[in-house]
């Protein structure tokens, strides 16, 4: 009879019912919080249409975004276009982006930061109350950095290396988000204009722009090799002086030095090699470190995978930076020693975001501990007064950092970076990053320029990463990455911007 087979069938069906139950629970319990904050969730759209929305303030309490309910529809006004790529927009027509999206449920009051109050509110079916956000960004520094970039396309990312609090994050060109967040009936035209603009103003370059880094990657190569013991601060490569003029032959391919501007080649250890930005030296360092450790360190520093700014359930996304051709969401293997040697000085297939490079600088500034970046400092009760309420409902502190290299390795890299800006040889290349030029006396900045060759007739991207103050035992207060698309040499465009931004912050922080 078939009864035995029916019993076996029963087991399979029971298993199927269990699997389907699991998939229901997955969406209703596990994924529910993530779904609740997505901009195209009808619940969010419905709330956004009519509910007042919380105000967003900068760290000093100035209004950056506020809402009015007009004809039953909530409309958003933004006061400062320098913040557009951080705050994003909240449009009745196009959904939301940036902080407007990640913190949507809090801004419209659907989620209470306090779970108990949320439960009570749910049970009593209370009307949601909007809540305000205070950012870690300082409007004074943000506007200053935006003005420094001026009409150029590029990005400035500045953060506190100790906490990961982002102090400024500018992407240019930017746009005014108010027209597309206002009356939904007239929002289409300005949006179309932005979408069709060849300068790509909608791209948040600081987080999502991918650029060849050039020589700023040498900071990573140095720190990783020092930590692994592949080099010491005094280590030299005997063939390097000769190869500076003749070229360094790797697997039959000749790696050539960039234009040293008349500086005579010598047997350079780390500091002078970083000061003159010797490609030959760092090619040797990368090869001494080896392909596998090189990628392993890169992953520790956050390369090879997407990054997040803020707690991961409400993060602003950062594109993955890659050192090699991506493979299955990771950095693929190096194709050979030529690629490894080129990646060691930031060429080959390397593509990075300004945020990633700012975190690299912050990790060196933080004695080898890379902070977790965040942009929202706290949640407050709603205030219509134009200043933040005193009632803090929730605080998003630093998520703690992660150690990426030893203190010793970071310190040795830091000394070389101080020399790169202030040393006899370094001044010729990165001297414009010197903060004393911009009115800060007795303090030193550390840094490294990058001139990312793009091949062909394209002008190179101009880069600078650094931090200040960096002399002796000083505790760095700001780490920066500056990128100017096709801005020419790192020393010409990015270095002075970085120097002025660091100087401005030290002045602001000291209350001057």
């Amino acid at each position, binding site marked *: *009879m*078939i*009864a*035995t*087979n*029916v*019993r*076996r*069938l*029963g087991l399979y*069906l*029971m298993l*199927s*019912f269990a*699997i*389907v*139950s699991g*998939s*229901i*629970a*997955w*969406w*209703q*319990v596990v*994924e*529910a919080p*993530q*779904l*609740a904050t*997505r901009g*195209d*969730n*009808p*619940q969010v*759209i*419905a709330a956004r*249409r009519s509910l007042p929305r919380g105000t967003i303030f900068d760290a000093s309490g100035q209004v950056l975004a506020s809402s009015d309910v007009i004809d039953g529809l909530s409309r958003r006004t933004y006061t400062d276009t320098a913040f557009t790529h951080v705050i994003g927009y909240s449009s009745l027509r196009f959904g939301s982006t940036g902080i407007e999206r990640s913190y949507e449920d809090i801004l419209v009051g659907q989620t209470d930061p306090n779970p108990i109050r949320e439960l009570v509110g749910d049970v009593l079916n209370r009307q949601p109350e909007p809540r305000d956000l205070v950012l870690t960004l300082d409007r004074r520094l943000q506007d200053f950095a935006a003005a420094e970039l001026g009409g150029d396309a590029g990005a400035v990312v500045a953060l506190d290396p100790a906490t990961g609090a982002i102090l400024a994050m500018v992407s240019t060109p930017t746009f005014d988000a108010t027209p597309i967040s206002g009356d939904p009936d007239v929002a289409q035209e300005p949006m179309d204009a932005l979408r069709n603009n060849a300068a790509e103003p909608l791209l948040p370059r600081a987080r999502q722009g991918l650029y060849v880094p050039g020589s700023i990657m040498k900071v990573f190569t140095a720190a990783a090799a020092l930590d692994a013991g592949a080099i010491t601060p005094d280590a030299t490569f005997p063939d390097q002086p000769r190869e500076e003029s003749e070229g360094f032959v790797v697997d039959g391919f000749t790696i050539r030095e960039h234009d040293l501007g008349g500086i005579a080649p010598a047997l350079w250890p780390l500091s002078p090699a970083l000061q003159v930005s010797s490609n030959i030296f760092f090619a040797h360092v990368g090869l001494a470190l080896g392909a596998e450790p090189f990628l392993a360190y890169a992953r520790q520093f956050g390369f090879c995978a997407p990054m997040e700014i803020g707690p991961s359930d409400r993060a602003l996304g950062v594109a993955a930076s890659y050192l090699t051709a991506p493979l299955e969401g990771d950095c693929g293997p190096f194709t050979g020693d030529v690629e490894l040697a080129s990646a060691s000085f930031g060429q080959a297939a390397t593509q990075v975001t300004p945020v990633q490079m700012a975190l690299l600088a912050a990790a060196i500034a933080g004695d080898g501990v890379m902070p977790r970046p965040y942009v929202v400092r706290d949640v407050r009760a709603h205030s219509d007064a134009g200043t933040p309420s005193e009632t803090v409902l929730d605080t998003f502190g630093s998520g703690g950092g992660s150690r990426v290299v030893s203190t010793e390795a970071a310190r040795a890299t830091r000394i070389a970076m101080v020399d790169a800006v202030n040393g006899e040889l370094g001044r010729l290349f990165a001297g414009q990053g010197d903060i004393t030029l911009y009115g800060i006396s007795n303090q030193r900045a550390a840094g490294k320029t990058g001139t990312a060759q793009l091949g062909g007739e394209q002008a190179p991207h101009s880069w600078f990463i650094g931090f200040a103050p960096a002399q002796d035992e000083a505790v760095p207060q700001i780490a920066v990455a500056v990128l100017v698309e096709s801005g020419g040499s790192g020393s010409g465009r990015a270095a002075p911007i970085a120097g002025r931004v660091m100087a401005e912050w030290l002045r602001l922080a000291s209350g001057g």
Partner: protein
Amino acid sequence: MRIAWRGAELRLLLPIFVLVPLGFAITNVALTGAFDGGPLHLAIGYVALLVGAHLLLVVLGHRGDQLILPAVGAMGGIGMIMLNRLPQDLAGTSAFGIELGMAATQLLWFGVGMIAMLVIAVGLRDDGILRHYKYSWAAAGILLLGATLLLGYEVNGARLWIDLGPVSVQPGEFLKIVLVIFIASYLAETRTLLTSARLRIGFLSIPPLPYFLPMLALFAVVMLIVVRLNDLGTALLFFGTFLTMLFVATGRRSYVLIGLILFVVGFTVAYQFFGHVQIRVDIWLDPFADPLGAGFQPVRALYALGRGGIFGEGLGQGLVTLGGGLTIPYVHTDFIFTAVAEELGLLGAFALLGFAAVLVFRGLRIAALARDDFSGLLAVGLTASLGLQTLIIIGGNTKLIPLTGITLPFVSYGGSSVLASFIMIGLLLAISHKSAIGADGDAGS
């Protein structure tokens, strides 16, 4: 014919008699802000149908399974509550001068379905008509399929409907039953002859030709449905039901494996060559890639699940419409489950799945106790069909498998679906009754 008291059935139905009107009342309060009666008469009508069905089974001395009707009644009750809660102009009837809203129309179909169920459960004393005319049934099936191919019109991208004046019919719903009858009869006849025969190629034992040919024929029908009618759900359901019956008839897991391999290969080929299959799969893999375009329905369904959470938003408090439109198109048919999960939460969703599980396991019990192979295989086929249909549509709603446009039995709106499902229940009850009578007869002799 003696009266057969069905105490267990009555006790299990009692909570439904209370909860369905209560659900209507809660919905009424949530939607209007105060209790004004609203469409409570529909809930009372539904209870009356169940009472009537129960009493008729008692009076007519039916000895069949007593858990089936309560399980169906509970699923149908949840369905009625949800359909009453949704906008009533989503569907409905306007014929012969009568205008009925969606819930009222569904209730009407429940009435028709229960009558069909009772007629079959009580009237089908001899299953010869099912068993001996198997090729007539096969011909009827091909006719139904052919009619759909020739006369069918498209709804939501799939060509499944035939217009018959006042009502539209989905032949696929009835084709399902006809196929199950044919396969049960075919397998019952050939099973003893063929379980001993086996061909081995490597580690797979290939079914003997008489098994293999109908399997291939059915496979061809299924692929036709996928490609010509763009109805992946029905195809999966037919083939899954067939493989389940084949497994029970032979006990050979390898036959099922071969069937699955055939299906996957066929599907992969279809994926390569037919754009609409590709689109379905791509949407399934990443619905969030285009949440306002191609992925609109599945994404909105997932949001509804998320909104429901564990406890649900409460009856009448889900986000069914937004700015004048439905938040999920086809919420009353393909996505009724997400509406239940949104308003009644994970607990309600599990309850619904639990009732379906009760139905399935009672169906399997009926199969195991059946007096002959044909009845057993028929019960297995009917049960598998109802069970798989439930699993496929809920799995599709929750992105476990690609989304397909089939109904959730007894819950989704739809006359063809309700009627076909009740016919299947009628057949199950008839088989169950026969074995109960037989067991008594054996004991008495």
